[in-house]
């Protein structure tokens, strides 16, 4: 019997997940247990709650699915999928019917045992009448949820989706105790490694290690204190003066201080987070692919990475798939700054010069207005005159994005190619911010979704990335790194997750004191 221990095998059958856990030889000595881990986190709001449907900012993402709650599946630090509350899973050949086997002997923090009913009720929360869940599209694709046994659930999907187990790792899809959901959301009762001691929205949260947890190789702290520090200088200060052990979102301007300090270290990863300039492909002049291409060659990507991200990023290639995705095609020809080529493309479109307005605001991403101005300067040499329109940050997402034909935008990326493409590039979806419609692309999208063969999927997703790059209406000039920092009192794992900031937001689970 041979198992290939990559995503391919795991996707088809979660049985390998158990094997992975069983055979995975420890790469380092068992981390030391104990201590109170103090976290200084940006991204906290007074509107925070334990309702996973509303989680959107880093404080609750880290505390929710990373600390107090669990999902059915989990993306490991190296990007492979493994079981969390589900032990294994099995798909029908058309990837339409999925059977999940749940872990035995799991209990919620209030002592209630975890089972199939909890899964069904927790997922139904997202499609309930009037629910405002960001994960609604994932759950509404499930046409039927059947309890086959206390520890077995079967999902029937509207159409085949090979990524379904991946989607179950989404941080919105937390598992709550059935029949006690309201109480669980009020007090934070989950199955995670830590149970809630106290929680003040927008201020702090204190959690302590849950003694009988099923994960034996994770959760090394006795307690975790998460302190909301939205002000970036205060956050940097707190780390430098040893008030906290780790912080997220390092301020690039003062990052060198952290590097200079012998007691602190910066850790950064390039993930899927990327900044974009979407153009409406149904509006002149962007309806001409030559114009779109000219603009793509008129932007100096390396300059943007150097000056806007101060080096904390990588150049993008006009498609939204990033290094944290499994089928990221890094062998495509890299688009570079080439004003002559841009000029000849304009000529092909029958134009001598081009005048366009680019709407930007720092609400899109930090430094967006500066980025637009750099774009303006570099495009000038290609005969493209960009007028930078500075838009107000308030109401940017409702008044500018999707409405102005050329603007600045950001995406945190998605764990799977299909999810990302069907969120913002599929024909007719509400967030298709370039109004792009490509027949071949949309056909491939459906085909790849239901394909279980990993090799075929790789080819299809490669072609789709190529299509987005060559025909698409979105300029993706750069990937922005997740830059966080920690005290040297902590032991850093060998591999750091790049799906979200703070080790894919599982720092409380995977890290320990040195």
């Amino acid at each position, binding site marked *: 019997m041979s198992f290939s221990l990559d995503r391919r095998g795991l996707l088809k059958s979660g049985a390998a997940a158990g094997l992975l856990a069983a055979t995975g030889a420890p790469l380092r000595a068992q981390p030391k247990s104990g201590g109170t881990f103090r976290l200084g986190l940006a991204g906290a709001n*007074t509107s925070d709650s334990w309702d996973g449907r509303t989680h959107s900012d880093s404080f609750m993402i880290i505390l929710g699915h990373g600390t107090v709650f669990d999902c059915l599946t989990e993306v490991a630090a190296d990007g492979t999928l493994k079981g969390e509350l589900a032990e294994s899973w099995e798909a029908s050949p058309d990837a339409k019917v999925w059977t999940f086997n749940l872990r035995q002997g799991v209990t919620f923090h209030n002592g209630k045992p975890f089972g199939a009913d909890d899964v069904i009720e927790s997922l139904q929360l997202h499609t309930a009448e009037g629910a*405002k869940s*960001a994960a609604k599209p994932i759950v509404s694709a499930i046409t039927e949820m059947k309890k086959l046994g206390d520890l077995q659930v079967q999902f029937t999907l509207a159409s085949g989706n090979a990524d379904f187990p991946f989607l179950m790792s989404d941080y919105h899809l937390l598992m709550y105790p059935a029949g006690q959901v309201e109480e669980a959301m009020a007090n934070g009762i989950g199955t995670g490694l830590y149970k809630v001691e106290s929680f003040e*929205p927008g201020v702090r949260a204190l959690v302590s290690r849950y003694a009988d947890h099923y994960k034996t190789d994770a959760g090394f702290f006795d307690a975790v204190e998460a302190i*909301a520090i939205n002000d970036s200088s205060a956050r940097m200060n707190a780390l430098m*003066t040893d*008030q906290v052990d780790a912080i997220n979102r390092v301020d690039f301007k003062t990052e060198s201080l952290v590097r200079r300090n012998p007691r602190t270290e910066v850790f950064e990863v390039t993930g899927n987070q990327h900044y974009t300039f979407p153009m409406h492909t149904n509006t002149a002049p962007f309806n001409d692919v030559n114009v779109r291409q000219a603009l793509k060659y008129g932007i100096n990507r390396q300059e943007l990475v150097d000056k806007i991200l101060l080096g904390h990023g990588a150049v993008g290639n006009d498609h939204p798939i990033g290094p944290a995705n499994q089928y990221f095609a890094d062998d495509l020809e890299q688009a570079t700054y080439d004003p002559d080529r841009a000029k000849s493309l304009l000529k092909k479109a029958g134009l001598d010069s081009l005048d366009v307005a680019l709407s930007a605001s720092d609400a899109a991403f930090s430094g967006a207005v500066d980025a637009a101005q750099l774009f303006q300067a570099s495009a000038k040499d290609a005969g493209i005159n960009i007028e930078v329109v500075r838009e*107000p940050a308030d*109401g940017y997402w409702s008044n500018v994005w999707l409405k102005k034909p050329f603007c600045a935008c950001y995406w945190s990326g998605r764990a799977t190619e299909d999810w990302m493409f069907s969120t913002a590039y599929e024909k007719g979806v509400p967030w298709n911010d370039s109004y792009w419609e490509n027949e071949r692309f949309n056909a491939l999208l459906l085909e790849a979704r239901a394909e279980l063969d990993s090799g075929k999927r790789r080819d299809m997703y490669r072609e789709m990335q190529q299509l987005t790059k060559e025909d698409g209406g979105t300029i993706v000039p750069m990937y922005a790194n997740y830059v966080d920092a920690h005290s040297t009192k902590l032991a850093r794992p060998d591999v750091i997750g790049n799906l979200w900031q703070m080790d894919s937001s599982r720092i409380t689970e995977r890290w320990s004191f040195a």
Partner: protein
Amino acid sequence: MSLVAKRLALGAVTLFVVSLIIFGAVELLPGDFAEEILGQGATPEAVAAIRQELGLDRTPVTRYFDWLGSAVQGDFGVSFGNQRSVAEQLAPRFGNTLFLALVAACIAVPLALVIGVLAALYRNSIFDKVANMTTLTSISSPEFFVAYILILFLAVMNPVFPSLSNISSDLDFWTRLDRTMLPALTLTLVVTAHMMRMTRAAIINLLASPYIEMARLKGVSPARVIVRHALPNALAPIINVIALNLAYLITGVVVVEVVFVYPGVGQLFVDSVKIRDIPIVQACCLIFAATYILLNLTADVLSIITNPRLRHPK
């Protein structure tokens, strides 16, 4: 007594006007709660759903009087953000802010009075000049700058106090005091100059009056002249300035709270404005306005009590 009642009634009217202005100002901000909370996900349907749920689709006039009606009965409504009652959310924050103001006042008021009296006593000496210069410098610098200087000297270079005011209700008094020290010292530096200079000016003013000359002529020591004879008569203006500064300690701490991440009303206020959580913003503003009105009232009453001429009107 009738004066107090009259002032209280005036205060209520002021509060009403303040609430009107605040409501109008919040209405003028671009974007509402629904758009802010949804961000990139603000599709027209989602925005409409949230607006309907919170009653934001009604006219501003209806909303204002609805809110006013329940506020008069002591019900400040529920927060848009997390559906918790405003009072429940505000109470611990207000307690924290009061604690900080109290600590700052306990340091600043005696300090300002003592320096003020000494400066008056040794007028135009080196001490007077140094005291004036330092307090004026600290009041003239922006608060966040003073705060960072204190962090640099008292937290980074000499770790005496923590730079982060991580306050929670389960802390004992001394830990809490320790963690409140840096913001309190920042506020002290900011408010001392005003009070100290008023003390100095009021006393110097009195020192020119004939009765002080008389006291001096009969051989009373300079210190006794000031403390026993001049200070009681200078109390009224000093009390007024102290009241004004105490009000500032409660309402003006927004920046200091953000720098030290102190969980007080100011930070809640900023967070709520950011997401357009109007019930909380309104309640915060009312608290700020009420603080000013009450402290001013107290100052007036106290100046009457300290002034026999006003206490026994002819």
